[in-house]
Protein backbone atom coordinates (compact mmCIF):
# COMPACT_ATOMS: atom_id res chain seq x y z
CA UNK A 1 0.00 0.00 0.00
CA UNK A 2 1.37 3.41 -0.91
CA UNK A 3 0.19 6.98 -1.05
CA UNK A 4 0.63 8.49 2.40
CA UNK A 5 4.06 9.91 3.05
CA UNK A 6 5.15 11.45 6.34
CA UNK A 7 7.97 13.96 6.03
CA UNK A 8 8.85 14.42 9.70
CA UNK A 9 12.12 12.73 10.65
CA UNK A 10 13.12 14.11 14.01
CA UNK A 11 16.83 13.90 14.89
CA UNK A 12 18.29 13.42 18.35
CA UNK A 13 19.93 16.85 18.17
CA UNK A 14 16.55 18.50 17.58
CA UNK A 15 15.42 17.57 21.10
CA UNK A 16 16.22 19.01 24.52
CA UNK A 17 15.21 18.19 28.06
CA UNK A 18 11.97 19.99 29.05
CA UNK A 19 10.76 20.20 25.45
CA UNK A 20 6.98 19.92 25.34
CA UNK A 21 5.31 17.89 22.60
CA UNK A 22 2.33 19.24 20.65
CA UNK A 23 -0.91 18.20 22.31
CA UNK A 24 -3.22 15.63 20.70
CA UNK A 25 -6.93 15.76 21.44
CA UNK A 26 -9.49 13.11 20.49
CA UNK A 27 -13.18 12.77 21.23
CA UNK A 28 -13.89 9.21 22.39
CA UNK A 29 -17.00 7.47 21.12
CA UNK A 30 -18.36 3.97 21.66
CA UNK A 31 -16.86 3.15 18.26
CA UNK A 32 -13.42 4.27 19.47
CA UNK A 33 -13.67 1.84 22.39
CA UNK A 34 -15.10 -1.12 20.47
CA UNK A 35 -12.86 -0.72 17.44
CA UNK A 36 -9.79 -0.47 19.67
CA UNK A 37 -10.74 -3.54 21.69
CA UNK A 38 -11.42 -5.70 18.66
CA UNK A 39 -8.31 -4.47 16.83
CA UNK A 40 -6.28 -5.63 19.83
CA UNK A 41 -8.21 -8.93 19.98
CA UNK A 42 -9.61 -8.16 23.42
CA UNK A 43 -13.01 -9.80 23.53
CA UNK A 44 -13.81 -9.04 27.16
CA UNK A 45 -17.35 -7.64 27.43
CA UNK A 46 -16.51 -4.55 29.47
CA UNK A 47 -14.99 -3.13 26.28
CA UNK A 48 -18.05 -3.60 24.06
CA UNK A 49 -21.11 -4.41 26.23
CA UNK A 50 -22.46 -1.37 28.06
CA UNK A 51 -24.87 -3.41 30.23
CA UNK A 52 -22.04 -5.69 31.34
CA UNK A 53 -19.75 -2.75 32.07
CA UNK A 54 -22.36 -0.98 34.19
CA UNK A 55 -24.01 -3.90 35.98
CA UNK A 56 -21.09 -6.32 36.37
CA UNK A 57 -18.05 -4.05 36.48
CA UNK A 58 -19.74 -1.14 38.19
CA UNK A 59 -18.31 1.37 35.72
CA UNK A 60 -20.35 4.08 34.08
CA UNK A 61 -19.89 2.72 30.56
CA UNK A 62 -17.59 0.59 28.38
CA UNK A 63 -14.00 1.81 28.57
CA UNK A 64 -10.76 1.79 26.55
CA UNK A 65 -8.67 -1.34 27.05
CA UNK A 66 -5.00 -1.12 27.93
CA UNK A 67 -3.53 -2.50 24.66
CA UNK A 68 -5.52 0.07 22.71
CA UNK A 69 -4.31 2.83 25.00
CA UNK A 70 -0.78 1.64 24.23
CA UNK A 71 -1.53 2.02 20.52
CA UNK A 72 -2.73 5.58 21.15
CA UNK A 73 0.47 6.38 23.06
CA UNK A 74 2.56 4.94 20.24
CA UNK A 75 0.68 6.99 17.66
CA UNK A 76 1.14 10.15 19.73
CA UNK A 77 4.89 9.69 20.16
CA UNK A 78 5.59 8.68 16.56
CA UNK A 79 3.47 11.53 15.21
CA UNK A 80 6.19 13.62 16.81
CA UNK A 81 9.27 11.60 15.85
CA UNK A 82 8.26 10.42 12.38
CA UNK A 83 8.93 6.89 11.13
CA UNK A 84 12.60 6.81 12.15
CA UNK A 85 11.63 7.01 15.84
CA UNK A 86 11.84 3.52 17.32
CA UNK A 87 10.09 2.73 20.59
CA UNK A 88 12.26 0.99 23.15
CA UNK A 89 10.23 0.85 26.31
CA UNK A 90 6.91 1.98 27.76
CA UNK A 91 5.85 1.90 31.42
CA UNK A 92 2.13 2.34 32.02
CA UNK A 93 0.29 3.35 35.14
CA UNK A 94 -3.46 3.28 34.89
CA UNK A 95 -5.31 5.63 37.24
CA UNK A 96 -8.83 5.99 35.86
CA UNK A 97 -10.76 4.66 32.88
CA UNK A 98 -11.55 6.42 29.60
CA UNK A 99 -15.19 6.29 28.49
CA UNK A 100 -17.27 7.29 25.46
CA UNK A 101 -17.94 11.04 25.41
CA UNK A 102 -14.63 11.74 27.15
CA UNK A 103 -12.16 13.96 25.35
CA UNK A 104 -8.68 12.45 25.57
CA UNK A 105 -5.75 14.84 25.62
CA UNK A 106 -2.23 13.54 25.20
CA UNK A 107 0.58 15.69 26.52
CA UNK A 108 4.28 14.95 26.98
CA UNK A 109 7.52 16.44 28.22
CA UNK A 110 11.07 15.36 27.46
CA UNK A 111 12.75 14.24 30.68
CA UNK A 112 16.12 12.99 29.41
CA UNK A 113 18.29 12.78 26.30
CA UNK A 114 21.26 10.43 26.27
CA UNK A 115 23.47 8.35 24.02
CA UNK A 116 24.11 4.84 25.29
CA UNK A 117 27.38 2.89 25.21
CA UNK A 118 26.61 1.44 21.78
CA UNK A 119 25.90 4.87 20.28
CA UNK A 120 22.11 4.85 20.25
CA UNK A 121 20.38 8.18 20.91
CA UNK A 122 17.57 7.88 23.45
CA UNK A 123 14.88 10.35 24.44
CA UNK A 124 12.80 9.76 27.55
CA UNK A 125 9.33 11.22 27.76
CA UNK A 126 6.65 11.53 30.38
CA UNK A 127 3.41 11.13 28.46
CA UNK A 128 0.01 11.74 30.05
CA UNK A 129 -3.41 10.78 28.82
CA UNK A 130 -5.71 13.36 30.39
CA UNK A 131 -9.50 13.48 30.60
CA UNK A 132 -10.64 16.90 31.72
CA UNK A 133 -7.96 17.76 34.27
CA UNK A 134 -7.46 14.22 35.50
CA UNK A 135 -4.55 12.03 34.43
CA UNK A 136 -6.17 8.77 33.34
CA UNK A 137 -2.94 7.00 32.37
CA UNK A 138 0.73 7.88 32.44
CA UNK A 139 3.27 6.34 30.13
CA UNK A 140 6.99 6.77 30.63
CA UNK A 141 8.30 6.25 27.12
CA UNK A 142 11.83 5.66 25.84
CA UNK A 143 12.25 6.23 22.11
CA UNK A 144 15.39 6.06 19.97
CA UNK A 145 16.04 8.82 17.44
CA UNK A 146 18.67 9.00 14.67
CA UNK A 147 21.81 10.87 15.62
CA UNK A 148 22.09 12.20 12.04
CA UNK A 149 20.57 11.66 8.60
CA UNK A 150 22.69 8.54 8.05
CA UNK A 151 21.64 6.89 11.31
CA UNK A 152 18.65 4.54 11.54
CA UNK A 153 17.66 3.11 14.93
CA UNK A 154 15.66 0.37 13.18
CA UNK A 155 18.90 -1.03 11.76
CA UNK A 156 20.13 -1.91 15.25
CA UNK A 157 20.15 -5.61 16.04
CA UNK A 158 21.21 -7.82 18.92
CA UNK A 159 23.52 -6.15 21.40
CA UNK A 160 23.40 -2.86 19.48
CA UNK A 161 19.77 -2.44 20.61
CA UNK A 162 19.36 -2.00 24.37
CA UNK A 163 15.84 -0.80 25.16
Amino acid sequence: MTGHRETIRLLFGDVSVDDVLPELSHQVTATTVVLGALASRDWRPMHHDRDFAIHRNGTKDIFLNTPNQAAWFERYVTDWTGPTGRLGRMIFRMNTSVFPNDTMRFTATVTDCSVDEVGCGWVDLNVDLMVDDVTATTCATRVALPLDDADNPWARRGDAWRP
Partner: protein
Amino acid sequence: MTAHGTPIQDLPPVPDEVIARIDKVQYEEEGGFPVEHGYIWTTCAAVENGNPLFWDDEVANELTDGPIAPPTMLSVWFRPHHWSPGRTEPAVPLQAHFDLKEDLDLSEAIISSNTNAFHEPVRIGDRVRSRQLLRSISEPKTTKLGRGRFWTIDVEYLNQDDVLLGVESYTAFGYRQPDGETDA
Protein backbone atom coordinates in the same frame (compact mmCIF):
# COMPACT_ATOMS: atom_id res chain seq x y z
CA MET B 1 -6.43 -4.73 60.80
CA THR B 2 -7.02 -3.44 57.30
CA ALA B 3 -7.12 0.12 56.08
CA HIS B 4 -10.88 -0.12 56.66
CA GLY B 5 -10.34 -1.11 60.27
CA THR B 6 -11.76 -4.59 59.70
CA PRO B 7 -9.84 -7.51 61.14
CA ILE B 8 -8.85 -10.18 58.62
CA GLN B 9 -6.88 -13.34 59.01
CA ASP B 10 -3.24 -12.92 57.97
CA LEU B 11 -2.04 -14.62 54.85
CA PRO B 12 -0.58 -18.12 54.86
CA PRO B 13 3.02 -18.61 53.66
CA VAL B 14 3.61 -18.96 49.95
CA PRO B 15 3.52 -22.69 49.13
CA ASP B 16 6.83 -24.27 48.15
CA GLU B 17 5.45 -25.37 44.80
CA VAL B 18 4.66 -21.73 43.99
CA ILE B 19 8.15 -20.57 45.02
CA ALA B 20 9.57 -23.30 42.79
CA ARG B 21 7.92 -21.65 39.77
CA ILE B 22 9.97 -18.45 40.09
CA ASP B 23 12.05 -17.87 36.94
CA LYS B 24 10.73 -21.08 35.37
CA VAL B 25 9.15 -20.99 31.91
CA GLN B 26 5.40 -21.60 32.00
CA TYR B 27 2.65 -21.65 29.41
CA GLU B 28 4.83 -21.55 26.34
CA GLU B 29 2.44 -21.28 23.41
CA GLU B 30 2.29 -20.20 19.81
CA GLY B 31 -0.10 -17.55 18.54
CA GLY B 32 -3.14 -18.78 16.67
CA PHE B 33 -2.15 -17.29 13.31
CA PRO B 34 0.84 -15.71 11.57
CA VAL B 35 1.30 -11.96 11.81
CA GLU B 36 -0.82 -10.40 9.08
CA HIS B 37 -1.05 -7.00 7.50
CA GLY B 38 -4.82 -6.62 7.86
CA TYR B 39 -4.66 -6.50 11.65
CA ILE B 40 -1.89 -3.91 11.46
CA TRP B 41 -3.99 -1.63 9.30
CA THR B 42 -7.06 -2.18 11.51
CA THR B 43 -5.05 -1.23 14.59
CA CYS B 44 -3.56 1.83 12.92
CA ALA B 45 -7.03 2.87 11.75
CA ALA B 46 -8.43 2.46 15.27
CA VAL B 47 -6.02 5.11 16.58
CA GLU B 48 -5.63 7.10 13.35
CA ASN B 49 -1.93 6.23 13.20
CA GLY B 50 -0.64 7.48 9.85
CA ASN B 51 2.98 6.45 10.41
CA PRO B 52 4.12 5.64 6.83
CA LEU B 53 6.18 2.77 8.19
CA PHE B 54 2.91 0.84 8.37
CA TRP B 55 1.21 2.17 5.23
CA ASP B 56 3.94 2.82 2.67
CA ASP B 57 6.02 -0.12 1.45
CA GLU B 58 8.78 2.17 0.18
CA VAL B 59 9.29 3.64 3.65
CA ALA B 60 9.13 0.17 5.23
CA ASN B 61 11.69 -1.18 2.76
CA GLU B 62 14.00 1.75 3.37
CA LEU B 63 13.88 1.73 7.18
CA THR B 64 13.01 -1.79 8.27
CA ASP B 65 13.78 -4.05 5.28
CA GLY B 66 10.06 -4.60 4.73
CA PRO B 67 6.77 -4.20 6.56
CA ILE B 68 6.67 -4.56 10.32
CA ALA B 69 3.94 -4.35 12.96
CA PRO B 70 3.65 -1.45 15.40
CA PRO B 71 5.66 -2.44 18.48
CA THR B 72 2.70 -1.94 20.80
CA MET B 73 0.83 -4.72 18.97
CA LEU B 74 3.16 -7.28 20.57
CA SER B 75 0.49 -8.96 22.70
CA VAL B 76 -2.07 -8.98 19.87
CA TRP B 77 -0.37 -11.90 18.14
CA PHE B 78 -0.86 -14.38 20.93
CA ARG B 79 -4.31 -13.43 22.15
CA PRO B 80 -6.51 -16.48 21.65
CA HIS B 81 -9.47 -16.57 19.32
CA HIS B 82 -12.81 -16.03 21.05
CA TRP B 83 -13.72 -19.54 19.92
CA SER B 84 -11.88 -22.37 18.26
CA PRO B 85 -12.88 -25.94 17.40
CA GLY B 86 -12.90 -28.32 20.33
CA ARG B 87 -12.43 -25.75 23.04
CA THR B 88 -15.08 -25.75 25.73
CA GLU B 89 -13.67 -23.10 28.07
CA PRO B 90 -12.58 -19.60 27.09
CA ALA B 91 -8.80 -19.30 26.96
CA VAL B 92 -7.33 -16.90 29.51
CA PRO B 93 -4.31 -14.74 28.67
CA LEU B 94 -1.73 -14.43 31.47
CA GLN B 95 -2.71 -17.76 33.01
CA ALA B 96 0.22 -17.58 35.46
CA HIS B 97 -1.50 -14.60 37.07
CA PHE B 98 -4.78 -16.46 37.55
CA ASP B 99 -2.89 -19.47 38.91
CA LEU B 100 -1.36 -17.27 41.61
CA LYS B 101 -4.73 -15.86 42.62
CA GLU B 102 -5.94 -19.39 43.19
CA ASP B 103 -2.80 -20.86 44.73
CA LEU B 104 -2.36 -17.95 47.15
CA ASP B 105 -6.08 -17.86 47.91
CA LEU B 106 -6.33 -14.21 46.95
CA SER B 107 -9.70 -13.74 45.33
CA GLU B 108 -9.14 -10.29 43.87
CA ALA B 109 -6.25 -8.81 41.89
CA ILE B 110 -5.40 -5.68 39.97
CA ILE B 111 -2.54 -4.94 37.58
CA SER B 112 -0.73 -2.03 39.19
CA SER B 113 1.86 -1.40 36.49
CA ASN B 114 2.86 -2.72 33.11
CA THR B 115 6.24 -2.33 31.40
CA ASN B 116 6.77 -3.19 27.73
CA ALA B 117 10.26 -3.53 26.24
CA PHE B 118 10.47 -3.83 22.46
CA HIS B 119 13.28 -5.81 20.84
CA GLU B 120 13.44 -7.21 17.29
CA PRO B 121 10.56 -5.89 15.13
CA VAL B 122 7.61 -8.18 14.47
CA ARG B 123 7.32 -8.92 10.74
CA ILE B 124 4.50 -10.03 8.47
CA GLY B 125 4.34 -13.81 8.51
CA ASP B 126 6.10 -14.22 11.86
CA ARG B 127 4.76 -16.95 14.14
CA VAL B 128 4.91 -15.33 17.55
CA ARG B 129 5.45 -17.55 20.56
CA SER B 130 4.92 -16.42 24.14
CA ARG B 131 6.01 -17.79 27.47
CA GLN B 132 5.26 -16.66 31.01
CA LEU B 133 7.79 -16.38 33.84
CA LEU B 134 6.92 -15.60 37.43
CA ARG B 135 9.70 -13.27 38.63
CA SER B 136 8.82 -12.43 42.22
CA ILE B 137 6.24 -12.58 45.02
CA SER B 138 6.33 -10.05 47.82
CA GLU B 139 5.85 -10.42 51.53
CA PRO B 140 2.29 -9.66 52.69
CA LYS B 141 1.35 -6.00 52.24
CA THR B 142 -1.67 -3.95 53.21
CA THR B 143 -3.02 -1.37 50.78
CA LYS B 144 -6.29 0.53 50.65
CA LEU B 145 -7.69 -2.45 48.70
CA GLY B 146 -6.94 -5.00 51.37
CA ARG B 147 -4.26 -7.41 52.55
CA GLY B 148 -2.33 -9.29 49.89
CA ARG B 149 0.88 -9.73 47.96
CA PHE B 150 2.46 -8.12 44.93
CA TRP B 151 3.83 -10.33 42.19
CA THR B 152 5.60 -9.73 38.90
CA ILE B 153 5.13 -11.86 35.80
CA ASP B 154 7.11 -11.44 32.57
CA VAL B 155 5.64 -12.48 29.25
CA GLU B 156 8.40 -13.02 26.70
CA TYR B 157 7.63 -13.03 22.98
CA LEU B 158 9.84 -14.80 20.46
CA ASN B 159 9.58 -15.42 16.75
CA GLN B 160 9.95 -18.68 14.84
CA ASP B 161 13.75 -18.28 14.92
CA ASP B 162 13.78 -17.91 18.73
CA VAL B 163 14.67 -14.22 18.43
CA LEU B 164 13.34 -12.10 21.30
CA LEU B 165 10.64 -9.69 20.09
CA GLY B 166 9.77 -8.12 23.39
CA VAL B 167 8.96 -8.53 27.06
CA GLU B 168 5.82 -7.42 28.86
CA SER B 169 6.25 -7.21 32.60
CA TYR B 170 3.12 -7.08 34.76
CA THR B 171 3.11 -6.18 38.44
CA ALA B 172 -0.12 -7.21 40.13
CA PHE B 173 -1.52 -6.92 43.63
CA GLY B 174 -3.57 -9.93 44.69
CA TYR B 175 -5.61 -9.32 47.80
CA ARG B 176 -8.48 -10.26 50.05
CA GLN B 177 -11.13 -7.72 50.64
CA PRO B 178 -11.99 -6.95 54.23
CA ASP B 179 -14.82 -9.12 55.57
CA GLY B 180 -18.22 -8.18 54.24
CA GLU B 181 -16.94 -6.42 51.12
CA THR B 182 -16.94 -7.83 47.62
CA ASP B 183 -16.18 -6.48 44.21
CA ALA B 184 -19.00 -5.30 41.99
